[in-house]
């Protein structure tokens, strides 16, 4: 690294200067790629969202007109509400299930390795595969409803997937099936990272195991919860594949999510401007979660 040389010193050698610049040269392409493909594209989409583009991009600006249209679009509201419902249930159930399984697995189970593998494998699958499988399982005529009825429960109803009011909950089931194992892995790693001596101290203080978990262990896992929420929220907002495969957005558009809304309008319905606006709002949603998280991370780093 060269700094301003004093009058009497010799200048840095050529090879010295090259070595100093090499790291920057090596990083430059990735930085350029980031700047262009990430930030540049975000800006571009923003610009598109301010135009009246339909089938092809046209740069005829209409201010925030597309956003206004979005706000007035019933399907967008359905999609946004669905996201709220889906996202909240998905995150909460994954957290509870993941934490529960992790705590149970932490009890010196002999088959822990095998069980962990079983809980986690769905994460290795594509959301398309998950969607296809659960679509089959939730098929009213041939899936779970049919099976339970064949066991004698004639009036068992589980046709959520074709019920406009209940279909969004099928998304929750499939998504939880896929991702809760991951949350379990996070919690398990967190549990294993807790200093044994804290737990021993609590035992000596006379606390029972459940109480130890509740009062001593869970507070230590707050960072894990934060990370998990962040990642799950991110998955929820991006959910596209699952909807396409499981419900196709239906019945009608009852299970539409912002991601499918954006794709349908931008690529299939020749509404590029509207689609871009919806994409920008999705970005806004991600930022709304990311920024507080980063802020709290930085703050805890400064204090800790």
């Amino acid at each position: 690294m060269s700094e301003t040389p004093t009058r009497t010193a010799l200048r840095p050698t050529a090879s010295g200067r090259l070595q100093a610049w090499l790291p920057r040269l090596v990083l430059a392409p990735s930085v350029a790629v980031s700047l262009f493909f990430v930030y540049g594209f975000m800006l571009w989409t923003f610009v598109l969202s301010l135009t009246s583009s339909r089938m092809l991009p046209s740069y005829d600006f209409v201010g925030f007109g597309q956003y206004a249209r979005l706000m007035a679009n019933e399907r967008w509201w359905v999609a946004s509400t669905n996201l709220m419902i889906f996202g909240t249930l998905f995150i909460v159930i994954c957290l509870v299930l993941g934490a529960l399984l992790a705590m149970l697995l932490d009890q010196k189970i002999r088959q822990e390795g095998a069980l962990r593998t079983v809980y986690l494998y769905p994460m290795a699958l594509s959301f398309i595969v998950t969607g296809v499988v659960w679509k089959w399982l939730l098929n009213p005529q041939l899936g779970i409803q049919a099976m339970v009825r064949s066991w004698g429960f004639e009036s068992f109803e589980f046709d959520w997937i074709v019920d406009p009011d209940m279909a969004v909950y099928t998304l929750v089931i499939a998504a939880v099936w896929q991702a809760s194992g991951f949350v379990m892995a996070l919690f398990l790693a967190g549990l294993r990272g807790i200093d044994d001596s804290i737990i021993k101290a609590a035992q000596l203080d006379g606390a029972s195991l459940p109480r130890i978990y509740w009062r001593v262990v869970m507070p230590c896992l707050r960072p894990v919860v934060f990370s998990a929420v962040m990642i799950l929220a991110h998955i929820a907002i991006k959910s596209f594949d699952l909807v396409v495969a499981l419900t196709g957005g239906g019945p009608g558009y009852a299970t539409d999510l912002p991601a499918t809304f954006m794709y349908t309008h931008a690529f299939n319905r020749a509404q590029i401007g509207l689609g871009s606006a919806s994409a920008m709002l999705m970005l806004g949603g991600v930022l709304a979660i990311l920024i507080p998280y980063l802020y709290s991370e930085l703050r805890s780093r400064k204090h800790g």
Partner: protein
Amino acid sequence: MAALEIHNVRKEFGSERVLKDVSISIDSGEFLILVGPSGCGKSTLMNAIAGLEPVTSGNIYIDGEDVTWRTPAERDIAMVFQSYALYPSMTVRQNISFGLEMRKVPKAEREAAVERVADLLQISHLLERKPAQLSGGQRQRVAMGRALAREPKVYLFDEPLSNLDAKLRVDMRTEIKKLHQRLGTTIVYVTHDQVEAMTLADCIAVMRDGHILQLGSPDEVYNNPVDMFVAGFMGSPSMNFIRATLEADGDGYALRIATPDEADLLLPWPTARHTAGLVEQLDKPVILGLRPEHFSEEDVRLSEQAEGTLLEAKVSVVEPTGADILLRLPLGEQEITARVGPKCEVSPGERLALRVDMSRAVLFDAETEQRLA
């Protein structure tokens, strides 16, 4: 021509000034040790010499050449790191010859260098092992071997013994000293252990807060410390600092040490140690520095011929170390440490007579902490 010259080097990290106008000159074959408390800048200075950190201003010369802006590779310097920094995926042989390989030394010469160094450090039987299979002491030798193979102009050692256990540390210290005597290499060595500094160095630089407080031989730094910090830093157990007042005593001076509940203690200042500056300190508070070994148990049979001043105090703590005994006793309003022979039989609470050798005592200005005499 000096082998290594550091000229007015300054290093700033942002607004923090870590090295403030440091200048040192050492000759070829000298063993210089940088010693000081954590954060004094010794490691930063070491990194600056190696070229791993650029200096903010100043110059560094090796064998007369200005290397201030050269990369580490161009300076012909080798370094032994505190953590050894051996390349984990390479065998010992490859570790040692790596530097030569980078300098495009022909294979035959490289092999010869490895053999020579392995012989010297007695690691020939370890050449095909990987660092993970070596003990701490063995890794240390390999790290030294890596440096020795290149035969550079200057060797830098950054606290190389800190990670070893106590016994191994003492053994390796001796080995390093022997190597230096045998090879006559120029060495700059950093340590926070002042015993290492005393035993190994030709020249010691005591550093604090980015300055060099004193640069001198071990004897000078130990017996003629330039201020209270140096005096207190070197020596273990450290020097006793006793508050006293300088008084006139006939033709000479004496030190009055206030003692509660008893008569004040009066220690005469030896005539041979008079300096001109003392007269300005008359009746002012001063700090008297006496090392624990300046006290000795009074041998009643030799009382008449004994030198030094006699004093008596009540022993509060007795700490036998095996080789000698450390006593804690009150002197005036303070407690001092005295080092006496292992045969001294005294229990806590007893009074003991001690002789003080004032000829080696030091006086400091109570405010500036600088040495007066």
